[in-house]
């Protein structure tokens, strides 16, 4: 389902009708409380919560590269950071494109 959304240029999370929790990617069952969760688009702009520069990879990613966890509205996402470095608190946007051989999302610093 996530890949179908990605093909449409969207990132879609889950919003629980019971506890209000927001999570990614969408699933009909809330990962926090088991309640019913509706699909909700992830906002485009976010803030970096943490990051790391990876020097040892699984062989599928060229090192060094940067990854981050960023918060977009209520949704937290892990992501690859394209073009340049980031710091905690930096604003980023997500985009969809080619990433290491597949169509996937990544972050870019604003």
């Amino acid at each position, binding site marked *: 389902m996530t890949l179908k959304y990605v093909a449409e240029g969207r990132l879609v999370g889950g919003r629980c009708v019971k506890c209000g929790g927001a999570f990614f990617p969408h699933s009909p069952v809330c990962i926090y409380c088991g309640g019913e969760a509706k699909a909700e688009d992830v906002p485009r702009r976010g803030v970096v919560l*943490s990051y*790391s*520069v990876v020097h040892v990879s*699984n062989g599928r990613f060229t090192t060094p590269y940067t990854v981050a966890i960023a918060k977009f509205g209520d949704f*937290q996402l892990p992501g690859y950071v394209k073009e340049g470095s980031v710091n905690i608190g930096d604003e980023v946007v997500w985009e969809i494109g080619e990433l290491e051989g597949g169509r996937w*999302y990544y972050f870019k610093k604003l």
Partner: protein
Amino acid sequence: MGVFIIGVGMSRIGRREEDGRQLLLEAYRELVEMGVDTAVAEAIYVGVQSEVYEHQIMYGTLAAEALGLLPREAYRVEACAAAGALALRSAYMAVKSGEVKAALAVGVEKMTAATTEVVTDALMAASHYIDQRSGVTIPAHYAMVARRYMYLYGASEEDLCMVAVKNHRHAARNPKAHFQRAITPEECLASRPIATPIKLYDAAPISDGAAVALVASEEVAKKAPTPAVEVIASAVATDTLSASQRPDITYPKAVVEAATKAYNRAGLTPKAVEVAEVHDAFTINEVLMYEALGFAKRGEGYKLVREGATSLEGSIPVNPSGGLKARGHPIGATGLAQIYEIYLQLTGRAYGRNTGARVGIAVNEGGVNSAAVVHILRAV
């Protein structure tokens, strides 16, 4: 109904030429040489992380065959690096229920024949596909936890390196440890980056090894010629598969949940614990474990290392074996390597590093604290 451990065994941990089967036998021989009758085991539970390293599943059958225990019940349990403690949990449940009188818990991993890239990839299977597709390795996950922790609470890279320094110092007294030499904070700080701010010396090594524990009912334990320790609590909890989905990535909720259940089941508070083996796959995680186990307040765990409280001579010795960091981290064996050390500590057999402890706790986790297994053991 009481559940006891009446014997243990562990291979030497490190870069070994032997395969998983031979390592299992090495661990098992130590158990047999204790003089305990291993034939009392009616079931065998085996913790193994990955079939990638040896292209081997069916490790339950393999273990039963290798140890000469066919046709007993035997199967594999898995939660990445928590597999070893889950094997103990399974043996505990089997004995506690009365289904069997004794069971063997086994953990094994043969990793060093694989390249670092293969190991990194096999471990990434312990995260969510959103992490995997984004290139977030397991070290990168802990690195982001470490960076966030440092940002929130003011800890430094040197503070984290002090965990490695302590655990190497402990392992120097453990003849079965992967690294039996002390290191300096400067060596740690200068070591090459794996996933910033995690450096080589913040990370547990890729190791080969195996460990076993024989779990028995009170009736069997009373007849055994070996010293017994009682398993007074066994608890498991889970958290989101992707660490990114946690409101605070520095809060290991599954470990807190499992520890709380274990303390309640044992009727103990953290103050009663006299020795601990915790899951320091990366130095940051030992600090998080101090907080999750109630040894330190949230955000203050890193101060315990500086104060020396968790050293062998300290008020609450943590990882007297050297921990994952220096004893070594053969993934599926680690949970039982921790139990091996706690058994030695509670029976006064940890020669050169005895703490004299009567109550010990072991925390084994898999993923990025996504599955946590806590056991509390007491000397009899």
